[in-house]
C-alpha cells in the first residue's frame, strides 16, 4: 500500500542555505578582525552534476567599504535544478525543474580592534522560503596574535508543498521551522609560519524538519516487496560542531592546510571530517594552484532505516540518505590566473579562476531501491559520483 504519491521532490536541503550564508558572511566579514575586508567583486557560473540531479546558475558577490569604518557585502545566487534523484525515481515522482534564488546582505562596522557585523539572508523557492538574520562581534587581542569572535543567528523557514503537473501550491499545507545558531571562534598566530583556527557552533532547530515529499519504505507481509509511507521526524534537533584548522607556510613559497571537525546531534548522528589543502604559486605568482582533499564520515540517525520491518514500526521514521551511515571522499583542484596585478583604470587587480571538485558518495545502509525484481533489503548499497564545476572572475577596486 502506498500512501504517499509525490509529484515532485524539492531541491536538496534548502534549510541550511541561510545558515551557511551567515557563516560564510562572518568568514568574510567579522572574521578579519581589526581590518576591513578588501573591496572586490566576483561573478561566477557554477554547475553540480551527480545523483541524477543537474544544478547550474550564476552568482555574484560585491563588497564595498566606506570611510575605512564600514564594509557592505551583497550577494545574489541562482540555482536552476533539474533531473530526478534516486528518491524521486523510487517514488515515481516526475522530474524536477525548479529554481532557487538566494540574497545576502551584511554590514561590518570597525571600531578600534573590534568589528561588529549584522547580516540578513533570504533563500526562495516555489515551496520553501528561508530567512535568517545574524549579529557578530570580533576582537583582536594579545598584540593582534589572537582574534576572538562571537556570533548569533536566527532563522525562520516557511515550508509549503506543490502538487500536480502545474505545481500549484497546496493551500492546506504550510509548516514552520525556526533555527538558532550560536558560535564562538578563535584565530591564533602560533609562530611566524603557523596559524590556527578553532570554531564551535551550536544549532537548535524547532519545527518541521522533514521533507513533505520524501517517504520511508517498509516490508510487505510476504517479504518480497515493499510499500511506502510518509516520513515522520522529531520536531526538534540540536547540533554541535567543533573544528580545528591549521595553516602552515612552507620553507618555499607554498602553504599547507589541515583541518578536522567533529559533529554530533540529538538524533545520534556523529560525524568526522578531515581536510587537507595545498597552495602553490607558479610563474612568478601569475598562477596559483590549490589542491584540496576531503574525507567525511557519519553514523546514522536513530530513527533512520533503509527498510522498516512493518508499517507504523516506531514513532519517528525517516529514510533520507543524508541521515544514513555514509562517507564522502572528494578531491578539488583550483587554478587562479592573476591577469592584472597592478593598477589600471579603477582596478587594483583582477583574476580569473576555475575549480573542479570530484565527490564520491558511499552509503553503508541506504540501498538502491529503484532496482526491480530484487528482494527488498538485498539491493546493492547506493553510491554515486558528482562533479562540481566553478568558473569566476574577480576584480579588486
Amino acid at each position, binding site marked *: 500500500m502506498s500512501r504517499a504519491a509525490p509529484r515532485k521532490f524539492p531541491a536538496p536541503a534548502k534549510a*541550511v542555505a541561510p*545558515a*551557511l*550564508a551567515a*557563516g*560564510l558572511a*562572518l*568568514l568574510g566579514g567579522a*572574521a578579519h*578582525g581589526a*581590518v576591513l575586508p578588501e573591496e572586490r567583486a566576483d561573478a*561566477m557560473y557554477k554547475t553540480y552534476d551527480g*545523483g541524477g540531479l543537474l544544478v547550474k546558475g550564476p552568482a555574484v*558577490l560585491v563588497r564595498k567599504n566606506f570611510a575605512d569604518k564600514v564594509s557592505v557585502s551583497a550577494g545574489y545566487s541562482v540555482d536552476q535544478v533539474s533531473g530526478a534523484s534516486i528518491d524521486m525515481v523510487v517514488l515515481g515522482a516526475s522530474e524536477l525543474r525548479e529554481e532557487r534564488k538566494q540574497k545576502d546582505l551584511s554590514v561590518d562596522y570597525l571600531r578600534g580592534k573590534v568589528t561588529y557585523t549584522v547580516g540578513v539572508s533570504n533563500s526562495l523557492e516555489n515551496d520553501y522560503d528561508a530567512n535568517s538574520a545574524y549579529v557578530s562581534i570580533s576582537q*583582536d587581542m594579545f*598584540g*593582534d*596574535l589572537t*582574534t*576572538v*569572535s562571537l556570533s548569533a543567528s536566527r532563522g525562520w523557514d516557511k515550508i509549503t508543498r506543490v502538487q500536480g503537473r502545474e505545481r500549484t501550491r497546496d493551500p492546506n499545507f504550510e509548516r514552520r521551522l525556526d533555527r538558532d*545558531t550560536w558560535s*564562538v571562534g*578563535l*584565530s591564533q*598566530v602560533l609562530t611566524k609560519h603557523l596559524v590556527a*583556527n578553532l*570554531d*564551535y*557552533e551550536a*544549532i*537548535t532547530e*524547532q519545527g518541521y524538519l522533514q521533507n513533505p515529499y520524501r517517504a520511508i519504505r517498509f516490508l510487505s507481509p510476504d517479504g518480497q516487496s515493499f510499500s511506502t509511507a510518509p516520513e515522520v521526524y*522529531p520536531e*526538534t534537533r*540540536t*547540533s554541535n560542531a*567543533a573544528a580545528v*584548522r591549521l*595553516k602552515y*607556510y612552507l620553507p618555499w*613559497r607554498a602553504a599547507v592546510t589541515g583541518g578536522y*571537525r567533529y*559533529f554530533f546531534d*540529538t538524533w545520534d*548522528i556523529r*560525524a568526522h571530517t578531515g581536510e587537507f589543502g595545498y*597552495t602553490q604559486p607558479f610563474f612568478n605568482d601569475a598562477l596559483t594552484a590549490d589542491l584540496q582533499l576531503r574525507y*567525511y564520515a*557519519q553514523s546514522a540517525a536513530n530513527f533512520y532505516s533503509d527498510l522498516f520491518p512493518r508499517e507504523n514500526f516506531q514513532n519517528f521514521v525517516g529514510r533520507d540518505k*543524508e*541521515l544514513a551511515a*555514509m562517507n*564522502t571522499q572528494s578531491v578539488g583542484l583550483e587554478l*587562479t590566473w592573476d591577469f592584472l596585478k597592478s593598477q589600471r583604470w579603477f582596478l587594483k587587480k583582477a583574476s580569473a579562476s576555475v575549480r573542479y*571538485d570530484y565527490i564520491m558518495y558511499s552509503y553503508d545502509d541506504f540501498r538502491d531501491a529503484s532496482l526491480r525484481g530484487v528482494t527488498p533489503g538485498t539491493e546493492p548499497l547506493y553510491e554515486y559520483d558528482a562533479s*562540481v564545476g*566553478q568558473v*569566476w572572475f*574577480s576584480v579588486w577596486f
Partner: protein
Amino acid sequence: MNGTTERIVARRAGLRAAGRPLAVGVLLATTLLTSACGRIEPWVKPYERERLADPIMAWDRAAISSSYLGHVRENREGAKGGTGAGGGGCGCN
C-alpha cells in the same frame, strides 16, 4: 505524555544538551575578552608576520566559491556548522 508535552520535553532536553558546551565556550571567550589587556608580550612581532600576511595564507581566498561548495556539502551530508565563524585574521595590519 501527549504530543505537545513530548515536544516540549524534547526541546528542553535539546537546549540543555546544547547549553552545556555552549556555556563553556561563552565562558572561555568571555575570559579571553576580559583578559585582553593583560601583559602578554606578542611572541611573533609585527615585522615577523610577512609570511602570514601572504595571500596564500588566507583561510578563504574566494568566498563566492567556498560558499557554493559549502552549500553542496551541507545539502548532502548530515553534519553542518563549524565551518569558520571564527577569526581568520593573522594580525598583519
